[in-house]
């Protein structure tokens, strides 16, 4: 009996399963977003775009250009957007002499293997899908979003073109089931990639509206980026055709552009920059206090100078740590600083008046007097000895001379052990009741106090209370594109095109706001120096010396200097000596670093990416 029951149960189960098994399971999965869910509404598209914007190759506060020297040991490198990316001092500025930092030399040339084809695929899907949803989004809505997609795609390709030169241009979502030979796309020529970027940004300019939410692109963002990108291409053509590393990729046009293309690119950069004429203006809310004005330019969210910004939020776990890592612990709640502006950068504004005509160091009653007569923009870019922040003073002091005689040059040339100064490894040591080194350094005991006598001021939020200035708590936006850069792009292109008159007007707008004396005429050197001064620490100069192809001369066994303040005890005065920065590191740019190597992992997936760039 029992076994019959079992048999019946088994039979009915089999029958039941075999009957229902013929019905196809055709229920839309609830855990996968189909294209209708995303592309039928602005809200869906916004969530799709959020990732694409977050992944843009914007070299912001958090950008780590390399994994060398322990950078990124906290978790990842490259373009970061996590909750604990607090190593801002591993910056490009610290590898090229704007600052000296934790890099042990110029060792960031290999990059970090940036390869954003995943994001590009998402943009390609967007471009393919959007036209199918015109009913829900209206044709105008579709066009505006398509323009935005072209802008995003251009930005990703720009991030690759400046690193690798020619890369495969992929404009449609590839089918993963396609044959390997169609999926393994060859490199395009460098010139083709720059032309593609230009054309994409033209589409962006044509299709996007004139205004947008902060953090999103509009037509002028596309134009501004175009001026930056075309200037890069123009310089690769002009300077890269005389200073290059020979190799297969160069001969084939994957790394390098014919010199004859330069003029057209300079013209494109100039024309794109001119489109912003009258739409944006330089921040000048407090013209009576030019230092404060220049400081606020980087902190005021509604500045008319901001073209494209990247925002951060504590709630979303994306805050950065600029405030806690650019100033020493003395001014903050935790963390430390590790990269410091060089005297070489400061002297772009002219030599500091620290030496008398007979070569002896000038005596100052007060540290802060060093700042007298300096350009407001310089004081707003770099914290000098005697400056104040959050009620405390930058009391930089390298040591004490019981007495000082002779010239500055003779003193600096002496071997350290034959100098008569008193130094200390900590801030507690006193000499005749006077503190030997400042709370803010400089010292050689570590690198959490300045090695150069200066600290970064740009972007530092002076309004915050010290107790709140901790890691991952800064939310001031990164200004990726600001009008001053567009003016500088325009001026540089104009000078290269032989239109120095236009360049003079652009440069003088910038100098007037900066509180500098106006120029009567400009040449290429002046335009380039203005760019270095205006855009210091903004991750521009690294790419500037690469596109000007001057990096191998600027960084040829280069050593950088600091300005060391000393107290002269018997005179009760301060003196300043220009000395090698305290770690005296050497920086050399190998010529192959004008291009980064195509990542090895990508080459093994796709051997058609060979030949790799020359020298790799």
């Amino acid at each position, binding site marked *: 009996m029992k076994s019959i029951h079992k048999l019946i149960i088994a039979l009915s189960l089999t029958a039941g399963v075999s009957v229902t098994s013929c019905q196809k399971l055709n229920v839309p999965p609830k855990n996968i977003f189909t294209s209708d869910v995303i592309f039928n509404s602005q809200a869906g598209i916004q969530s799709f775009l959020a990732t694409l914007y977050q992944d843009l190759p914007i070299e912001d506060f958090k950008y780590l250009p390399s994994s060398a020297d322990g950078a990124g040991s906290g978790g990842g490198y490259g373009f970061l957007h996590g909750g604990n990316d607090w190593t801002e001092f591993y910056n490009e500025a610290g590898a090229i002499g704007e600052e000296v930092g934790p890099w042990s030399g110029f060792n960031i040339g290999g990059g970090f293997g940036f390869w954003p084809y995943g994001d590009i695929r998402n943009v390609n899907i967007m471009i393919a899908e959007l036209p199918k949803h015109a009913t829900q989004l209206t044709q105008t809505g579709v066009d505006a979003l398509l323009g935005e997609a072209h802008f995003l795609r251009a930005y990703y390709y720009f991030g690759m073109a400046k690193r690798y030169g020619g890369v495969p241009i992929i404009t449609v979502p590839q089918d993963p089931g396609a044959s390997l030979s169609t999926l393994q796309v060859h490199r395009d020529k460098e010139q083709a990639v720059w032309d593609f970027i230009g054309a994409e940004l033209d589409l962006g300019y044509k299709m996007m509206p004139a205004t947008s939410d902060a953090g999103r692109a509009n037509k002028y963002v596309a134009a501004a980026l175009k001026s930056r990108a075309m200037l890069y291409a123009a310089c690769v053509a002009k300077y890269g055709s005389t200073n290059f590393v*020979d190799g297969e990729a160069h001969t084939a046009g994957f790394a390098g552009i014919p010199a004859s293309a330069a003029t057209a690119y300079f013209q494109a950069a100039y024309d794109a920059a001119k489109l912003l004429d009258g739409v944006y203006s330089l921040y000048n809310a407090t013209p009576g206090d030019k230092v404060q004005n220049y400081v606020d330019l980087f902190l005021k969210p509604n500045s008319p100078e901001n073209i494209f910004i990247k925002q951060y939020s504590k709630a979303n776990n994306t805050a950065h740590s600029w405030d806690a890592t650019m100033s020493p612990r003395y001014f903050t709640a935790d963390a430390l600083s590790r990269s410091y502006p060089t005297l070489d950068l400061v002297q772009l504004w002219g030599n500091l008046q620290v030496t008398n005509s007979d070569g002896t160091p000038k005596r100052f009653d007060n540290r802060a007097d060093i700042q007298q007569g300096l350009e407001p923009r310089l004081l707003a870019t770099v914290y000098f000895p005697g400056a104040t922040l959050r009620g405390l003073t930058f009391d930089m002091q390298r040591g004490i001379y019981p007495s000082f005689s002779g010239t500055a040059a003779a003193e600096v040339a002496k071997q350290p052990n034959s100098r008569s100064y008193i130094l200390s490894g900590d801030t507690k040591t006193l000499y005749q009741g006077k503190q030997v080194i400042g709370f803010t350094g400089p010292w050689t005991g570590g690198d959490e106090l300045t090695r150069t006598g200066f600290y970064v001021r740009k972007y530092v939020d002076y309004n915050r209370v010290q107790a709140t200035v901790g890691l991952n708590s800064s939310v001031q936006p990164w200004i990726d594109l600001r009008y001053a850069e567009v003016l500088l792009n325009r001026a540089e292109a104009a000078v290269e095109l032989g239109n120095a008159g236009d360049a003079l007007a652009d440069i003088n707008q910038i100098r007037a706001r900066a509180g500098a004396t106006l120029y009567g005429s400009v040449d290429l050197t002046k335009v380039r120096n203005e760019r270095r001064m205006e855009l210091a620490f903004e991750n521009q100069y690294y790419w500037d010396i690469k596109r000007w192809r001057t990096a191998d001369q600027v960084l040829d066994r280069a050593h950088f200097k600091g300005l060391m303040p000393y107290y002269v005890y018997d005179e009760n005065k301060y003196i300043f000596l220009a000395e090698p920065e305290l770690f005296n590191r050497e920086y050399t740019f190998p010529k*192959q670093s004008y291009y980064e190597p195509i990542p*090895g992992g990508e080459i093994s997936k796709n051997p058609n990416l060979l030949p790799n760039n020359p020298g790799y």
Partner: protein
Amino acid sequence: MKKLISIILAGMAVLAISACTKTDNYDGPNASFQGNIISTAGGNLPTSSGSTQIKLQQIGWTTPQTIPSKFDGTFEDTKLFKGGYRVIPTGGAFWPVYDTITVNIAQGTRHDFTVTPYIVIKNFTATLTGTTLNITYDIDAPIVAGLPTIKDTQPYVNTTKLVGTGASIRDFSDVNAVTINKDFIDMSAAEKSRTLTVPNLIPGRTFFVRVGVRLSDSYNSSNFSNIIEIDVPK
């Protein structure tokens, strides 16, 4: 029950032991490649660290590897996988070689490369006066047309026979560099006959000295002289 467990354990033990008996049927990296980088000016090309190297790319693989040249212009790598390789000398300071050759590398494979140096340093002398070293040498170029600009020239001083870029005492070496920044073709006969001085050598020590001429080629590479041993008397 106990019996069952012991059978299972025994079975597992047999499986565990037999699972490890598979052998790797690929050969280890037991091939080697060695040879000389011969200068057309005679002898081996004198080199230093971090410049001249042999680049090898195994056929069928995408990532190249390199064998750095030793200071005497020889190279050797004894841990290579057997197979066909495309090889080429690179890194300067010699006229670029564009033709890769294919070599079947097995145990004891030898190959000599011949290169034309940019600059040849001749008549190199180093004599001591007290603790000051006086160096004289002539620079010559086998091929003048199209030669990269000459950047500078300097002595390299070290306490071991390994002396050159990246292996020298800065205060005796880099500090005494002399900038030239001229094309060879524009240099006068007097400029091609160089003298350098290295003051304040330490008495009672032995130093090894050579000179280098640096060019603005793709690698900012240097041509070197031979190495002279100097004993500074106490």
